[in-house]
Structure formats: structure tokens, C-alpha cells
């Protein structure tokens, strides 16, 4: 009985990395490596759907650029969100309220002192 029978029902846990997938899409892998990728793809509905879709992109060389642009856009969005959150956190700092309160108290006290000195 060939050992390969096990492969038919096994579930290879290793996933295909993005670089290998791109090479696969550009038909730049050896037949042996292609077989390995295809075997892994058969185990994941997600990856299979993705390959079906990516194969519809006419210029396969553009796929890497598209991914890079999407990643850059994602990083920018996350940075903006982070900055906004930091600003919000700054607003929430209790010491700001304490400083404002002390400042107002100082103004009120000075007002009374000035008034008192004017009356006297």
C-alpha cells in the first residue's frame, strides 16, 4: 500500500506564504513545488477562493503592487486611528483639569485680593 494514500485524507497544517502564492500565480515554481502548493490549497476553502479570484487578474505582476498599496493604506489608517486615540487620551488626562481648576482659583483669589486692596 503506498504511503501516499495518507496524503489524500491528511490535512497539511503549513499554510502557503504570500510570496510563494505570488510565484505560483506567475507560474514561476517548479512542478514539484507547484504540486506542494496545490496540495495545501486543496485544504483551505479560503485560499482556494482567493486563488480562483487572483487568477482572474490579467496582469499577475501587478498583484504584488496592489497588495503593497493596500498594506500601506492600512498602515496609514491605523496610524491615524492611533494619533486620534492619543489625542483623546490627552483630553482625558486628569492633570489638565486640575491645572485649569488651579488657574481659575488663582484668578478668583487675585480678583478678591485686588478688590480688597482697592477698597482699603
Amino acid at each position, binding site marked *: 500500500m503506498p504511503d*501516499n494514500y495518507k496524503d*489524500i*485524507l491528511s490535512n497539511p497544517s503549513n499554510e502557503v506564504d504570500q510570496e510563494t502564492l*505570488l510565484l505560483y500565480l506567475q507560474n514561476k515554481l517548479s512542478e514539484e513545488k507547484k504540486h506542494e502548493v496545490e*496540495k495545501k490549497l486543496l485544504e483551505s476553502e479560503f485560499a482556494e477562493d482567493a486563488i480562483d479570484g487572483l487568477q482572474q487578474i490579467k496582469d499577475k505582476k501587478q498583484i504584488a503592487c496592489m497588495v503593497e498599496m493596500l498594506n500601506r493604506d492600512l498602515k496609514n489608517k*491605523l496610524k491615524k486611528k*492611533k494619533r486620534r486615540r492619543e489625542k483623546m487620551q490627552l483630553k482625558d488626562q486628569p492633570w489638565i483639569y486640575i491645572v485649569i481648576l488651579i488657574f481659575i482659583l488663582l484668578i478668583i483669589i487675585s480678583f478678591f485680593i485686588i478688590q480688597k486692596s482697592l477698597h482699603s
Partner: protein
Amino acid sequence: MVYFPFVKADKYQHITDQQLLRQFYADQNNEWLGILLQRYTLLLLGVCMKYLKNEEEAKDSVQQIFLKVIQELQKYKVEYFKSWIYMVAKNHCLMKLRDRHGKMPVEINDRLAAAPEEETDKNAILQNDRTLELMEAALKELNPEQQRCVTLFYLEKKSYQEISNATGFTMLQVKSYIQNGKRNLKIIIENKLKDEKIPS
């Protein structure tokens, strides 16, 4: 080997998706989400292309899916990230198609969010030595096309392209014969195992 300067190897690849999510839930630092989501950019682009069949729309959809995922992860705890993001992507595309056609076209698969793909089931079958003994007979019960493609793929380790060249089937046919053949093999073996358990 060709090098893709734009798709750099993930230097955090030793950290699993679940660990990244745990880190995010612990400190709410979006950078963890960035690392996690970038692992799926290519797959998401592919899924969106499959359903929407338009490059610009697919790119926009990936961006919208990223935003949705970031918002949802801040509200809910997700356990099986890969299955979950796949479901989010599919649902997003189906909504887009519905908007395009004015009706709901396809079903939404809840199973995806529940657990990773039938792993335990497969392993249970595999552990059974009798399964492998039955495989040879089960292979013969497949239709000739499926039998040929499954044999060439799994036993002779040929790629889809090589099988296509050897058989004259298209790549799509080869893929479909292997997928269906594999599914049928599993059913045939399960039935044989069941029959063996039932005393006649």
C-alpha cells in the same frame, strides 16, 4: 528565485494569529492588528476578485473589510480569526452583489465562524489503519476521470499543469476532479467503515 520587494516576509511569522489577537486585546494597540491583517491582504484581494470580478471594486472592498474588521475586533472577541475574516469578506462581497443586483444571491455559511475546517474529523479517519487499507478499493470506485486525476496528483505527485498535459483536461477540470474525487473517497471509505461495524 524572484524576489517581491513589496511583499516582505512577515518578521512576526513566529507569532500565531491567536497570539497577535491576544496582544491586541491586552493593550488595544492597533499595530498588532496591522501585522495580523497584512497576512491576509492577498487572500482577501483574491476572494473579493472571485466574487466581484472587478479589480478596482475588489481593492476598495479589501479596504472596507479592513475597516470593518478593525471596528468589530474592538467590540467582540474572535477566536478563529482566519475562518472569521473569510466569512466577513464573503458577506461583504455578497452584500455588494446584492446592492448591484437588488437581491440576495447566495447563502451565508455559519459553519466558517464556528471552527477550523473539520480537522478532527479528518484526523480521526486517518488514524484508522483500516481506512488506508480500504483506500485502494475505494479509489477503484471513483469515476475514471476522478480516479486518474487523484492518482496522478496524490500518488504520483504531479501538478495540475502536468496532469492537464497528460490527460488533456483543462486545469479547471483537473482541479474539480481532484476536489470531487477526494470528497467521494472520503464518503466511500466512511460508508465502508460503517458497513463493517454493522453485523450482517
